[in-house]
């Protein structure tokens, strides 16, 4: 192994030339990545870039404690390479994805099967092979893709002994819309709008990540006023979704007062985003080089007032919820993921923080407005449904506090600046802490400055395995509250 090579370091929301990224032979690259992961790095992205006759593997790592990112790649190759998953399970889905997209086979991968199964033959993703538990008392339960509730499609295959779930395997891909493929050769006319719908409930986070990528490729950043407005909208998005989730959790344990109240309050938060930009999800707000709409002082005052009452309503609805022993009893020790498991599979966002992992892009890798104003990381040990609910409740409080502070001290000035065209042959990385966790966008431009490869990693990509582990040893009837406590994105995963 060439010991002189080291991963290239960069900060969040910056770029570096493709030629500055060290390239190892494939097997050495896997070893080098494993060494960095052993040192405490976290795998943010692992994807293929077609080059000459083969494919380069690219790894983006995060050193959270050092607030830095690292990038390395392999030399182009075809065929097989030693799997990283055997040493670091957090790579398992990434390696399956690379195998599906580029045909590079991770030798030794314990469960190599397609991730989305692009459907050429009318074959649904659920028609593949599933891990099966054999035994006289064992039965299999198949759920989806069309579920009983108003949710996105996915397939869940449970192996059960009576009530107890021995194993859950999740087959997704039903929402695959060809998002990454549509970006090749871009940015196109529709690109910014498509980025707002990667996961429609995470519009601000994905749009901010994409705009940040274009700004990093242009070697600049958005004006402060736009950074401030994006940070405000990001917290409103978190508040709306966390409040909705708390309501849904209450609904799943038949605690209706909080369900009803949160249903209304979520709408109130969505309307606050609409007050800023005319759309309840923040469509049209974030634009490359800044923001598309501004918040004048008159509406800012209105926003402050409505925010205050919505936050007070939320606190009251949550107080009902925590006061009820019947709610707490249902949540405690249900669907537990251990701290160690969370670390090994690379959980992010509230799901990770509910296992006691201090992990938050706003704090660890601040970019944009978060360099000047950070929210404390809300952590709770335990890893059960209770902890995931608790972390959300804490984040609702923190986000509310953060918004109060930021609304009191807005950044002034230009809202949008002209962007230079993207630099050619450059790789840019943007991480944003969306309400589900780390949204990661990585772009590589070609010689003409167009996207040669654009990789999107929604936090759900890291976290679905967490749900599968949470179900082990749990009664199958607890699946709904476990699922709600993660509330992961199907379309963000399927792309």
């Amino acid at each position, binding site marked *: 192994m060439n010991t002189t090579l080291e991963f290239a370091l960069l900060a969040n929301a910056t770029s570096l030339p493709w030629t500055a990224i060290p390239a190892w032979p494939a097997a050495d690259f896997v070893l080098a990545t494993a060494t960095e992961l052993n040192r405490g790095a976290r795998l943010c992205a692992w994807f293929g870039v077609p080059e000459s006759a083969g494919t380069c593997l690219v790894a983006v790592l995060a050193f959270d404690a050092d607030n830095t990112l690292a990038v390395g790649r392999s030399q182009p190759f075809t065929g097989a390479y030693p799997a990283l998953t055997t040493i670091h399970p957090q790579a398992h889905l990434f390696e399956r994805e690379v195998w599906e997209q580029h045909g590079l086979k991770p030798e030794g991968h314990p469960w190599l099967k397609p991730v*989305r*199964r*692009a*459907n050429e033959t*009318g074959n*649904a*993703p659920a028609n593949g092979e599933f891990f099966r538990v054999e035994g006289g008392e064992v039965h299999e339960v198949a759920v989806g*893709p*069309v579920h*009983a*509730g*108003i*949710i*996105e*499609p996915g397939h869940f295959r449970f192996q059960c002994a009576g009530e107890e779930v021995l194993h859950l395997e999740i087959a997704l*891909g*039903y*929402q*695959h*819309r*060809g998002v990454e*493929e*549509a970006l090749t050769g871009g940015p196109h*006319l*529709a690109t*910014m*709008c*498509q980025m707002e*719908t*990667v*996961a*429609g*409930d995470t*519009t601000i986070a994905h749009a901010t990540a994409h705009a940040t990528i274009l700004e990093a490729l242009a070697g600049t950043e958005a004006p402060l006023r736009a950074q401030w407005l994006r940070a405000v909208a990001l917290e409103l998005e978190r508040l709306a979704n966390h409040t*909705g989730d708390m309501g849904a959790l209450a609904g799943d344990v038949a605690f209706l*007062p909080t369900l*009803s*109240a949160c*249903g*209304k309050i*979520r*709408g109130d938060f*969505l*309307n606050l985003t*609409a*007050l800023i930009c*005319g*759309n*309840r*999800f923040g*469509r*049209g707000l974030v634009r490359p080089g800044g923001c598309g709409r501004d918040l004048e002082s008159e509406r800012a005052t209105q926003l402050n007032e409505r925010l205050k009452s919505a936050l007070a309503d939320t606190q*009251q609805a949550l107080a*009902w919820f925590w*006061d*009820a022993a019947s709610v707490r009893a249902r949540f405690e020790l249900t669907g537990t993921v251990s701290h160690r498991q969370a670390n090994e599979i690379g959980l992010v966002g509230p799901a990770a923080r509910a296992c006691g992992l201090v992990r938050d892009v706003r704090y660890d890798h601040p970019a944009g407005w978060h360099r000047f104003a950070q929210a404390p990381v809300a952590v709770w040990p335990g890893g059960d449904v209770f902890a995931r609910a608790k972390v959300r409740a804490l984040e609702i409080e923190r986000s509310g506090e953060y918004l109060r502070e930021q609304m009191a001290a807005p950044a002034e000035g230009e809202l949008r600046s002209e962007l230079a065209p993207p630099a050619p042959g450059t790789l840019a990385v943007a991480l944003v802490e969306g309400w589900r966790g780390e949204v990661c966008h990585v772009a590589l431009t070609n010689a003409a400055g167009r996207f040669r490869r654009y990789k999107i990693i929604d936090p759900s990509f890291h976290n679905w395995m967490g749900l599968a582990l949470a179900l082990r040893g749990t009664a199958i009837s607890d699946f709904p509250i476990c699922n709600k406590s993660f509330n992961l*994105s*199907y*379309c963000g995963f*399927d792309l």
Partner: protein
Amino acid sequence: MFETLRQSLKIGVVTTSYPDTPAEVSRRARGKPEIDWANWRDARPAAAVCPTGAIECRDEAGTLAATRTATLDLGKCIFCGLCADVDPAIRMTPQCELAARSRQGLRHTAQYALNDNGTHQRLLATPPAAASAEALAAAGRELQTRIQSLLGRSLHIREVDAGSCNGCEVEIHGLNSPVYDLERFGIHFVASPRHADMLLVTGPVTRNMELALRKTYAATPDPRLVVAVGACGCSGGIFGVNYATRGAVDAVIPVDVYIPGCPPNPHALLHGILLAIGRLSPYASSPTAAPKSGRALFQNPAPPQD
């Protein structure tokens, strides 16, 4: 527990009185783009920035004079407002009740005489959407009679996400919240297509969901209604048709009502669902008719809210 009850009772009724009263939508909300058809001078700038091709223009060299056909397709529109940013003849309005009983009912077209410099002038013809309103009304009456004789006043809906971004689902969830309270109309979401009268389908229909959608449709007992939700459900939206998606819902199963929007807000959804079951006058969806308020909207009085 008593304290919880006391506090929640104190909140009172938060349910909107829509559709008895007009939708309370913020003036800034971006809904339908309104084009000043008579004074529109050039469709090209707006068409050039439209990310979904909702605004299109087609020029033809006629025998006497060159003509231009300009189209605004609300089924493709995502209400982004980029057209209004570049064209003073276009204005974004908060109007969200846009559902129609046919895909054609969402297309607005005008013909112009084309100038040599590429701009256009002189409106030649606006095939008025009102012209089809009579046909729509007839179709609506027929459907309404059929549905009401079979279903009475209750309706069971099965929601199918066939490839959406979850934006539409968030708004559909909103219908179940106390603010919109769909159940006051006797309308319920059910867990199985076997129990459903209506499929509420969001899209774009991905190739991976096509089979599931067909099976769900087959499992829904006749008579069944299908409502396509959102720009993606109506037309394929921002993703259109590609190797992974089939685009519009009606590319896969027959559709009765189209609800535009990206995503349509709960008012727009409620309007579309009520339109589908003939609880609203079809004229309410006609783009030329101003939204009316009051009970006149109803052909049947609303059930009492108690």
